[in-house]
Each structure stands twice: as structure tokens, then as C-alpha cells.
């Protein structure tokens, strides 16, 4: 199971390593700042990528119901996989597949990613449509696989209400965050507790009700952190066609596409920088001077 190499640097010799066993896990001992240089990308000043930002070189993985092969609004996929659970042994494996999409939902998500970041590389992992696919462990396995492959962005317009997966998902989401794999996850459409969108290490997305297809908002009252266009969205569907649909599922790939665009212009950005870029560029976030402090110091934060 190999995937193509990205133009985006994923490992840099000069970058500090924080994995256990690298000597930097709990504290910096016997080494100074000069031993841990970081080659950074400051990212776009106000969150919007500068120059051409089409998603080129960024690898996006759609974890869903599969993606229809060669849909005219999506084009060829860079990889197509399915998570399969054996009926007798319960063993779960990830295999290459040519089966496309079982219901249209994954095709819709991939189409929104493509529309937003036209030149990004799209991969699909199908976690729905096979027997046992509603059991949560198949979703878990598909997401874990995607994180292990080191995709830059993972679109997850799904969640599980099964609390027994919460801890494992939380740990996986944190691993992805530190490994620079950004998981963009849909909030549930109904007010129920589900995962992994609840976790701070993912970028969680719900739908706003505005007509602007390029509007995203920051939620000052998380856990859902961002809102994207998810009402009456025209999306690719089975049979090479399009439909209109509504839900958080469709706001999420818009934000995933935005992430791909920002990363294509600023490839060294970390997951927290990316989240900050989305925050700064959200239409409802205003950049005003900071109020005066006790010392009478007035600073203008508009450029920060």
C-alpha cells in the first residue's frame, strides 16, 4: 500500500522530532535553542493564501462511502481503498478497490474538495457500504489508515456516537495533529454526542445558512470551530450527475479544500497555524486594535 510522494515537505532534517525515544519528549535537556532550529512558514498574513493557491502538491483523503470513478466534476483519483471486515475472524483490512461509491455521499464530498482546491490530489477510503460498516470500528480503521499514510488533509464528514471509540479516536486525532495530518471533521447534524469532531486537535465544521458558497465563519462558542456553506449545495452524485443537498457533511469538504489551498501556498505550516489561518480569514473575525492596558499601551494587532 503505497501512495505517491507529496511536493509538501513532510520530514525535514532540521525539524525537531518529538516522538518518544527522540530525547525531546518531556523536556529539552543538554541541548539549547540552536540544537532545535525550525524552518517555518509564517503562513498568509490574514489567513488567505497569497499567490496561486490551487491545492497543488497537497494530498487530501476522503474517508466516506467511496468516490465515483472518473466523475467529470472530480476527475481521476490518486488512490482508492476500502476497509473490509472479515465476517468470521473480525479482522479488518484496507485494500485497493475499484468499486467507486455505494451511495453518492463520498462523491459529493470529493467534488466539493475538488471545486475548492482544483489541483489537489484526492484519495478515497471507503468505510461505508460494506457489511459491518456501521459498527464504528471500520470507520476507526479507515481513519487510522489515512493518518498512517501521512495525508496532508483528511476529510471526515462522518462521526460515531459509540463512546467506546472516543478515547482511541482522541488519541488518533492528537497523533494526526502532531504529524501534520489535518483531520477536518463534520459536527453531527443533530445535537448528539459524537466523535471525533468534538476534539480540539481536529478542525470541526458545521453548516451556516448563508447563500455565499465561499463564506466561512469562526464559532466563538466551540466545540464546533468553523461553519461553512452546507445548505442547498450543488454536489456531484452517482452517474456523473449532480444533485442539491444540505448538511454539515458538505460544509466540511469546503473547509478541507480551503486547508489544501493554504497548504499548497505555505507548505511548511503546522496544524495549529492552519487553524489560525482559518480563524483569521473567517468573515466574522474582525481585526481591531487591542483596548488600552493599565500602562496605557495601545497596540494595533491588525497585522498579527
Amino acid at each position: 500500500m503505497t501512495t505517491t510522494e507529496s511536493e509538501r515537505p513532510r520530514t525535514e532534517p532540521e525539524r525537531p522530532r518529538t516522538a518518544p525515544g527522540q530525547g525531546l519528549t518531556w523536556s529539552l535537556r543538554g541541548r539549547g535553542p540552536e540544537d532545535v532550529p525550525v524552518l517555518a512558514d509564517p503562513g498568509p498574513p490574514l489567513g488567505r493564501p497569497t499567490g496561486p493557491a490551487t491545492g497543488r502538491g497537497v494530498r487530501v483523503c476522503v474517508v466516506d462511502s467511496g468516490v465515483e470513478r472518473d466523475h467529470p466534476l472530480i476527475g481521476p483519483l490518486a488512490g482508492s481503498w476500502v476497509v473490509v471486515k472479515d465476517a468470521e475472524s473480525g479482522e479488518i483490512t484496507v485494500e485497493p478497490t475499484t468499486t467507486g461509491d455505494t451511495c453518492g455521499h463520498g462523491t459529493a464530498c470529493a467534488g466539493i474538495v475538488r471545486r475548492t482546491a482544483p489541483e489537489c490530489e484526492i484519495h478515497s477510503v471507503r468505510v461505508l457500504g460494506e457489511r459491518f460498516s456501521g459498527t464504528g470500528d471500520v470507520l476507526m480503521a479507515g481513519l487510522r489508515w489515512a493518518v498512517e499514510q501521512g495525508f496532508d488533509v483528511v476529510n471526515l464528514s462522518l462521526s460515531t456516537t459509540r463512546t467506546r471509540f472516543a478515547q482511541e479516536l482522541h488519541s488518533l486525532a492528537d497523533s494526526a495533529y502532531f504529524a501534520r495530518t489535518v483531520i477536518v471533521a463534520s459536527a453531527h447534524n443533530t445535537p448528539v454526542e459524537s466523535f471525533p469532531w468534538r476534539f480540539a486537535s481536529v478542525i470541526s465544521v458545521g453548516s451556516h445558512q448563508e447563500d455565499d458558497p465561499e463564506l466561512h465563519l469562526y464559532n466563538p462558542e466551540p466545540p464546533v470551530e468553523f461553519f461553512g456553506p452546507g445548505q442547498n449545495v450543488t454536489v456531484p452524485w452517482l452517474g456523473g450527475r449532480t444533485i442539491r443537498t444540505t448538511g454539515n457533511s458538505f460544509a466540511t469538504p469546503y473547509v478541507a479544500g480551503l486547508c489544501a489551498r493554504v497548504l499548497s501556498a505555505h507548505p511548511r505550516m503546522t496544524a495549529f497555524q492552519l487553524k489560525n489561518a482559518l480563524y483569521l480569514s473567517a468573515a466574522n473575525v474582525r481585526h481591531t486594535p487591542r483596548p488600552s492596558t493599565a500602562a496605557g499601551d495601545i497596540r494595533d494587532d491588525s497585522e498579527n
Partner: protein
Amino acid sequence: MTPRTDPAPSLSPTAAATVADAPRRELLQSVVDVARAIFGAEASSVFLLDEEADELVFQAVSGQGEEFLVGRRFPAGRGIAGWVATSGEPMVVDDLSSDTSFDRSLAESTAYVPNALMAAPLISESRILGVLEVLDPSPQARSGVRELDLLAMFARQAAAALRVVTPEPVREAEQRAAAGAGVLDGARREDALKLLGSLERLLRGVG
């Protein structure tokens, strides 16, 4: 969706009990009738999940297909109902009739091609029992986030009611499965019987 045309007798024990259970049947029919009325829809259906066969089974239909759809089944992971059943999320789609692949499969089963469809999961105590579908809701009653919320809320209420009227043998089997072991011990059995007694009194009072 590629519904099969198996006759009703091939239903699983759970589904067979459903068919035999008049209050449950009446409840499900009421759910689809009310859903259809709320959304000014051409039709509405309830599918219940047969986990053993990994299939969704038409259990009640209001409007188009009412006479011949009940008892038909299709693979649980397919189509919009399949996505809703496995993801646990509601869904609204519009402009379906331009989708040839959708037309073909649905036309086989219902002889009716919707232009719009809303579907929400029937969830009770974190278990997905099935799917409530509304076909061709009136244009004013579809496609928005609010409508999606309304359908999901109604489906949730329907699932809660379904759980209450589920026949006792089925519920006991479900409880055993959930507990992962044999029958309830003395104290728990007593509590369970008390609970059932209270429910029965409550239902009689309401009824």
C-alpha cells in the same frame, strides 16, 4: 438502492415479530402518515434494520407504493437510506430525477421516481433501528437545515415510541445481547418487571 422482492415470510425473527405486532404496526403507519403530512410529501416510508441479514426492510409506507412495498428489503449499506442507516446522520437531497442511476434502482421497487428525498435515522439509546424517509416533500418544506432538524427530531421521537411498543420477547433478546450474558438476575429482573409494569400503566393511561 436495489430492493429485493422477497415476500414478507422471509423476514428475520425480529421483523416477523414486528409484522405480528399490531400496536407496533399501527405506530409505524402513524409515523409515516404524520411525516408525510408534516412535510406535505408524496410518500413516506420506514425501513427497519435487519442486522443479521445486513438489510433494510420496508415496514410501513404512506402514499405511493403503500400496497406492495411493505416487506421488501435491500442491502443496508446502499443508497441514501443505507448511508443514513450506517452513518446515523439525516440527509436531504434534491434534483434527484436528473440522476439516472438513482431512477433505475428506485423505479424497480416503487414504480415512483422522486425528485427530492429526506431521510433520518431511527435511533434509540445509541442503536440505529432503521430509517425514516420522506419522498418529494413540498418545495417549502425541504432542503434547509431547519427541515433537516425537524425530520431528525421527529425520527427520534418515532424511535423512542418504537422502543416502547417493541414486543417483549424482542426486547428481552436485545437486552440480553446488550448485557452480553444470560437472563437478568433476581433484583434486576424485579426492577425490569416494575419498569414494564409502570410503562404498561402509563400507556393505558395515555391510551
